[in-house]
């Protein structure tokens, strides 16, 4: 009898420690956003394919631009842990506010299941969002070394869109920079020729072009100018 009680106790302890697992079709998603998209929603469906109950203790999107939601399961308390019985399905939803983002950015939803330490959440769901550049500068920055010859350098502005995006205004943060803006093809290609007035002093400046785009994401294009001492090798 005594050994039976001990065995049962051990079994109970082991059962309570055995961790079930949620199975996801994928934990990494790549999403291409439309140029005018303001937000995107990404779904991560899952199923508890283990024989044990899985409890999602909490989840978080550690970026103010992303909101994480969980659907399915049985909530143990309001805004508290959510229980998933064996075979039960659910879905994590990430809503990503794109703001004026351009380019590629990784955003994550972090999930703590029962038994996970604060430092090591067991589930990490990643969304790689790509937002196209419809207008961009090549290169985006120019460098002169201090004392370098005052030779002009060129930045090309290209539009990668069937509809034209016209540059309607331009300004430089520093009066120490001379520049001219030339239209190569109205609405599609421009050429900036930039020459510092002097390379004697260190300078960090931005040259901003404003476009006629109604989409705030493509309203401005910034290029940067640096004059700094040559880096010692």
């Amino acid at each position, binding site marked *: 009898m005594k050994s039976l009680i001990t065995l049962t106790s051990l079994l109970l302890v082991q059962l309570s420690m055995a961790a079930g697992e949620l199975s996801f079709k994928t934990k990494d998603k790549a999403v291409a956003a439309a140029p005018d998209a303001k937000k995107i929603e990404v779904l991560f469906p899952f199923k508890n394919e283990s024989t044990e109950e899985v409890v999602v203790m909490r989840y978080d999107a550690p970026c103010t631009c992303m909101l994480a939601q969980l659907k399915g399961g049985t909530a143990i308390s309001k805004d508290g842990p959510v229980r998933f019985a064996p075979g039960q399905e659910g879905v994590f939803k990430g809503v990503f506010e794109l703001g004026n*983002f351009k380019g590629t950015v990784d955003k994550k939803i972090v999930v703590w299941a029962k038994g996970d330490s604060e*430092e090591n959440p067991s589930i990490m769901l990643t969304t790689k969002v790509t937002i196209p550049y419809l207008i961009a500068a090549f290169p985006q920055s120019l460098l002169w070394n201090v004392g370098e010859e005052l030779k002009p350098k060129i930045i090309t502005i290209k539009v990668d869109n069937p509809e034209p995006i016209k540059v309607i205004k331009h300004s430089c943060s520093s009066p120490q920079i001379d520049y001219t803006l030339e239209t190569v093809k109205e609405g599609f290609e421009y050429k900036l020729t930039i020459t510092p007035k002097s390379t004697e002093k260190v300078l*960090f400046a931005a040259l*901003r072009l404003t476009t006629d785009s109604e989409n705030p994401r493509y309203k401005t294009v910034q290029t940067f100018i640096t004059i700094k001492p040559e880096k010692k090798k």
Partner: protein
Amino acid sequence: MARWIYQTLALLVFSAGIAFAMFLVVGPPDRSVPCVQAELKESHVCLSTVLGEWGGNVFWVDARSETEFRKGHLVGAILIPETDADNQIAVPEHMEQIGMSGVNGQKLVVYCATDACGSSELVAKKIRDTGFHSEVYVLQGGWKAVLASEQKIELVK
């Protein structure tokens, strides 16, 4: 049955006593964010490397939200939230500070809330693209690593 319950309770009390004694002797559990510099990407840096090898002499850029920044940030850090990074980088004061930190030999380290936030990666890339600074790093573990650090680090609260 009653004996079994008493024995189980006695074991629980004994375990709790041992745990408490360990807490008194060893101290609280280590909550620091594990970080091994050799295992990181070249563009990432451990807080221990910043404070140890680099002597803390870095220029900090905070890529979190303004609300989080106001609650507390590293001394000397400037705020460049990812949602407004393009505009904030081009603020003349910020351009000067970023550029001059490089000229003065300081490395630039960007942090966000945790490893999972992704904002520091994005802001670091945007700063690299300006060409103002050639040594731009992302702090592994972000703000969470700062709060968990056992090494003394100055904060603005």
